[in-house]
């Protein structure tokens, strides 16, 4: 997706090149690497960094691919046996599966892993499971699943930052009485519901739920009952069309003063600011229980960098990863993306995160529950179905049975 104008003229040339079957290397000794990213938010950042990298390494071209429905596309590519050279993907179930299936290159012997915080290396290791030897991804950026708030509105309404669930509900009530939209929901896109689901579940559901579920010791009906209740309760504080507005429009609306609170990850912050550079935002961890001590921040590896096992240019790919880990590069990435750094010595200093910094410092972090669910069960749509129908028990039963079906397929 590099911008080259006048490529129109070259189109015929492109066709000829396709016929000739150009795949990666070309005659002049230069190497082309494909970087696959699952985040559309970071396209501009990546493009700028790639340009810088290419200047420093004139014999390496990096081409960025960041398609929509990236996970499906990536799995299609896996089926095609056509994996990109470098992957920039979330630390989730898909990553775990890739690591188990031997799709990714073991990076244990490189000096890459020593440059990042070891706790996140361990987190990726957990996703791969205990049977997997080696480290297959470099944790790069980490995220925070939090409540974003409109500072001006919160001050105007005299709301104190809530520390417990009851306080949070009280705050939403205050906003509702003042005629504001208390919580801006963007459930036309089902995945945005998972920010809430994970935020609540992170502190309520046992950390090893997935393992217990697979051993038949836990179920959604039992363990997610409270999560479902609380999610359904939050629906009462949305706007008039909770299921009709999507993420992009939601960011836009929140940026322009609709909604006091917004449950999203840190990745939404640059988007909101782009829509309204003047908005003042704050963040806090979703207080899903009534015991403030128990309320940790849900955080995971947002971006893990990995190299595919099948790449023809592992050295060049490693070079790119090393480049990404350079202090000033990582700083640029974290600043532009409002992300938290897994790279040693790089910190996120944006004051929007003042409210959650202590969680990182004191290691009060909980993980994203859904990262441990079986890939391909499409849990976000099941959760959405439950929210729309408002039928908690039936909804959770379906999730239970779909889990089992996904494991059996």
């Amino acid at each position: 997706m590099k911008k080259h104008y006048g490529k129109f003229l070259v189109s015929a040339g492109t066709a000829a090149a396709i016929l000739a079957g150009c795949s990666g290397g070309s005659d002049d000794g230069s190497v082309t690497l494909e970087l696959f990213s699952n985040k559309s938010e970071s396209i501009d950042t990546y493009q700028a960094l790639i340009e810088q990298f290419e200047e420093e390494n004139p014999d390496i071209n990096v081409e960025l691919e960041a398609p929509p429905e990236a996970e499906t596309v990536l799995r299609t590519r896996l089926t095609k046996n056509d994996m990109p050279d470098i992957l920039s993907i979330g630390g989730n179930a898909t990553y775990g599966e890739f690591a188990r299936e031997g799709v990714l290159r073991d990076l244990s012997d490189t000096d890459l892993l020593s440059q990042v915080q070891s706790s996140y290396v361990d987190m990726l290791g957990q996703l791969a499971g205990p049977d997997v030897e080696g480290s297959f991804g470099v944790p790069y950026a980490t995220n925070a699943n939090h409540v974003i708030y409109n500072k001006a509105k919160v001050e105007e309404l005299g709301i104190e930052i809530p520390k417990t669930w009851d306080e949070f509900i009280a705050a939403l009530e205050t906003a509702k009485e003042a005629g504001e939209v208390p919580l801006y929901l963007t459930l036309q896109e089902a995945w945005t519901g998972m920010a809430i689901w994970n935020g609540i579940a992170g502190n309520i559901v046992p950390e090893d739920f997935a393992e217990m579920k697979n051993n038949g010791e836990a179920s959604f009906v039992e363990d997610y009952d409270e999560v479902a209740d609380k999610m359904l309760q939050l629906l009462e504080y949305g706007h008039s069309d909770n299921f009709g507005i999507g993420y992009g429009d939601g960011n836009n609306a929140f940026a322009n003063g609709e909604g006091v609170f917004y449950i999203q990850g840190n990745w939404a912050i640059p988007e909101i600011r782009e829509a309204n550079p003047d908005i003042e935002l704050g963040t806090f961890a979703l207080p899903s229980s009534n015991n403030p001590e128990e309320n940790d921040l849900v955080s995971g590896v947002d971006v893990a960098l990995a190299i595919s096992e099948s790449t023809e240019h592992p050295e060049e790919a490693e070079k790119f990863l090393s480049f990404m880990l350079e202090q000033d590069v990582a700083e640029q990435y974290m600043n532009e993306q409002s992300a938290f750094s897994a790279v040693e010595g790089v910190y996120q200093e944006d004051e929007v995160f003042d409210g959650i910094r202590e969680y990182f410092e004191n290691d009060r972090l909980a993980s994203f529950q859904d990262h441990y669910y079986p890939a391909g069960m499409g849990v976000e749509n099941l959760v959405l179905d439950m929210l729309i129908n408002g039928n908690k028990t039936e909804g959770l039963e379906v999730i239970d049975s779909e889990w089992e079906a996904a494991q059996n397929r």
Partner: protein
Amino acid sequence: MSNRINWKATILLILGTIFILFPIYLTVIIAFKTPQEMSGNILALPESWGFGNFTEAIEVTNFFNALGNSVFVTVLTVIIVILTHSLVAYAIARNMHKKFYKFLYFYFISAMFIPFPIIMLPLVLQTSSWGMDNLVGLGILNGVMHLAFNVFIYVGYVKTLPVELEEAAIIDGANTFQVFWKIIFPMMKPMHATVAILTALAAWNDFMLPLVILSDSSMYTLPLVQYAFQGQFSTDYNLAFASYLLAMLPMVVLYIFVQKWIIGGVMRGSLK
């Protein structure tokens, strides 16, 4: 009664065009507006007719590259289709009395009832392992996907062509291929037009096949580019609509100039 103009029908039909033209009108005015104008009356004309959104869309989506890809795939598809499908249809039409050709005819036609998703998964696997996940591969696959319908209308047409000319040519010493090239192929011209139009439109607007076949975004065709950029358009509807308009424009312009021909071609095909 036959020479009186039916005004009732005329007026109803004119009113009906509002449904057709409204979305197009909307696309055009939004493509020219600025984000600030969006908060006002959405249906109003833009304050100025600047091309800023378009130049930005061209730059962001690398429009000319996608246009080149779309043109390349469409042309390649049409060439493959016209050459191979007319050939096979001629052989079938002239041998329908033989079991083998009759079987072949129904074998091809039956594909009309096979929705693409049914062969999609194995096809993706197969094309990529053969290094065909590119524009040339796409052209070839397009040719295959349209075979059923094209054979159907080509065969129908060839049957209406008189055999006498061919027989005369054979007596003059021409072989079957020469007969085809010199006599039948030119006589099939009206059907070539129909097949070319329908195939070209389908290939140009196709989304699903390129989506699963192409991996490299520098090969994306116009519809695929619109899809790929949804995330980046985000809520900048002006940019998005400018990009949509650009993507639709080549076909619309072509249509305005040759609509009589296109409609005629399609109608001819439907009578076969």
